[in-house]
């Protein structure tokens, strides 16, 4: 075929005829299940040998000039974006001012009637778990979505489990006396503290998200010190599934009840209790427990999925 401007066009009209280099450059040729892919390094070497010297030089120059342009543009775009945002901030109302737009009837009712209407002394807990519980239901489902995604990504199939688990840490912690002693002492304290934050969420600072994070960290520490086998006696995949499913289902169903009765103006039979007692705040305490369990499971689940590809 004659080499001119239109040769690509004619080749295309002919249909499907490939560019001579396409096969070599396109590393994305799909890997079908089962086929063993050549390692990317091998492919790269094969590619480098196949490409003539001058072409390689040209490509290097192209890549270098592209990189330079890329860096310049990156900096430029970021500077523009940052200055626009900073300029905008300078126009915003002063933080904490009396007459700011966000000092309106919404915040007023939360602060003045919050305790009476939700039964929770901690106004934040009342806001996120009673006034705006639908958003928090969504947020818990975000956590659930995230952990399911990590399952999809990291969970090793039973056919792939080849690397022995002990080989992937440089220094095996499970024989360290100091760590053992410290963790033996600290683990119950950490867990108790987590439970305290969890149960106290409607009375003071804390709540499900904070308490769950503390408990999850405690589980991770235990697993680091004593190894997977001992932790699995306490917490395995089945526990994970049962706990997180029960917690989220309870959250969904109990809040559905409350949404339904609220919207249809029906009587809500859940008592609010006396504000300040541990058993008060209506659904807030059980919901805090649910959120805390989900958060603890999610945190520990992330750790162990990245660590060994399963819980």
């Amino acid at each position: 075929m004659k080499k001119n401007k239109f040769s690509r066009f004619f080749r295309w009209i002919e249909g499907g005829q490939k560019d001579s280099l396409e096969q070599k450059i396109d590393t994305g040729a799909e890997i079908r299940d089962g086929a063993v892919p050549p390692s990317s390094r091998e492919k790269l070497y094969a590619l480098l040998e196949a490409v003539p010297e001058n072409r390689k030089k040209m490509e290097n120059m192209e890549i270098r000039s592209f990189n330079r342009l890329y860096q310049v543009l990156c900096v430029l775009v970021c500077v523009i974006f940052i200055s626009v945002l900073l300029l905008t901030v300078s126009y915003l109302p002063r933080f904490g001012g009396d007459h700011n737009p966000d000092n309106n009837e919404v915040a007023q009712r939360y602060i003045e009637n919050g305790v009476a209407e939700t039964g929770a002394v901690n106004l934040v807990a009342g806001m996120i778990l009673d006034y705006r519980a639908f958003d928090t239901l969504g947020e818990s489902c975000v956590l659930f979505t995230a952990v399911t995604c990590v399952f999809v990504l990291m969970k090793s199939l039973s056919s792939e489990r080849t690397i022995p688990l002990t080989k992937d840490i440089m220094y095996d912690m499970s024989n360290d006396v100091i760590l053992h002693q410290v963790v033996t002492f600290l683990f119950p304290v950490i867990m108790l503290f987590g439970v305290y934050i969890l149960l106290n969420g409607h009375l003071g600072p804390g709540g499900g998200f904070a308490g769950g994070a503390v408990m999850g960290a405690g589980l991770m520490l235990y697993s680091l010190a004593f190894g997977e086998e001992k932790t699995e006696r306490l917490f395995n995949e089945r526990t994970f599934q049962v706990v997180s499913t029960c917690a989220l289902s309870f959250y969904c169903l109990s809040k559905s009840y409350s949404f339904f009765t609220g919207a249809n103006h029906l009587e809500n039979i859940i008592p609010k209790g006396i504000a300040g007692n541990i058993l008060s705040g209506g659904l807030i305490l059980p919901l805090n427990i649910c959120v805390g369990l989900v958060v603890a499971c999610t945190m520990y689940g992330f750790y162990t999925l990245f660590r060994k590809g399963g819980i």
Partner: protein
Amino acid sequence: MMDFIQNFPFFSIVMSLFFAVLSSVLKPKFGEWLAVFSIALSTFFSLSVLFYTLTTGESFTYMMGHFPAPWGNEIRGGVLEGLAATVFDFVLLFSFLGGRSRRKEDIPEEKTKYYFVMINLIQAALLALVYTNDLFTGYVFIEICTLASCGLLMIRNVGRTTLATIRYLIFNLLGSGLFLIGISLLYDITGHLLMENIKTEVASIVSGGQYLQPLLVTVSLILIGLAIKSGLFPFHFWMPDTYGYATTSSAAILSGLVSKAYIFLGIKVIFRVIGFDVVASTHILNVLFIFGLAGIIVGSLSAIRENNINRMIAFSSAAQIGYIFVGIGTGTMAGMVAAIFQIFVHAVTKPMLFISASRLVDVSGGKKQFSYLQGSAHRNRLAGFAFTVGAMSMVGIPLFGGFAAKVAFATAAVGDSKRMIPTILVLAISTVLNTIYFLRTVMRIYMPAETAGNPVARSGNRWPFIFAVTGFAAVNILLGVCPGPVLDLIEKGLSMFG
């Protein structure tokens, strides 16, 4: 006492969230049934909402809990919400069914149940984005939508999908971040998250003159964030890999629904949060208009150069998203109606193309290059027919949905002296370009094969595919033959927005 039907939006959202949690512990077989059941039931719910709001003639709000709206959460049902939810549910159901056989091959058995979890989560997120009346609720479900889309993508574990997921995640997080900055600035200058209250505050800002600069930045951040998430022109580079290598249902759902839901939320923001007149007076719509035009051309040109059928369809998505933003960018009511109509037409066309293309690829030995696809329409007639219908609609042949959408765009542009010429010119150019790559593919698949293809022996149930493809084709032709009622519904819904 309110009517029982007003509970339906809430039922369908919470039901799919609950089923998502449930199917993470069920066996895959039950999970699949649960997903189909949930989508079918929610289609029925959405249809009821549509008819209910049509008969009452007004929208309704639904209090989520015991506290009225600015304090508690609220969702809202209207004609447009009901219509969008119905279309989204319908497309979700058929995309899910149509990709069933590929799903078995693409997804390892141990991970199959997570796919159904993701489907349920996506459904909840789509419906919540449609029904929400509160900006922050919108953001929460944008998060769920983004994460669940990543799950749908990377569950097919070949290297290319992991790369595509990373790219998709980066672009989407950029969009989410801009949206979040936008709504926090908006909260700072208005003090509300509920759509109606923000709108009244914005009106007083516009008349009072204070905080006008932050308002402009806010509008731009929110709309640009959503445009990035839906893949408007300079940010469409995640599309080919994402749609090209994901398993069929995922590609169909991501291209047909997820990016459309973000645009739908954007339209809701334009009408119900900022106010149509305020947005039209800023220049942000011009920016969207220009990038939409550029997207149409660039997407089509990239599609022409593709040699892989899935990537070609993916690039054509970039062009179709461009149409939607051109419609929004005209800044007229007719343009908005055309944009929403295009959302629906594209939502029923693109999944059909992906599903039929994957079947054509299956009967051509799993090769996606055009040279292998020669004659594949004879090896699977229904897939060939469906692909042809989709291609005709994309090109804009009369009697197919795409034609009605293009006519709507052209009529919307006619009134506007500045935007008429570029719009009509680009519509004409893109029709030619679409013809080149789509009809070329149609001719290719109907050309008799030189060598007999080696069709993959396929076991299992063929009915889901047949059901899905005929459903999509029927709706497409219906939209093309009588677009009038749907356009009327959209117009009615938009007037309820205002």
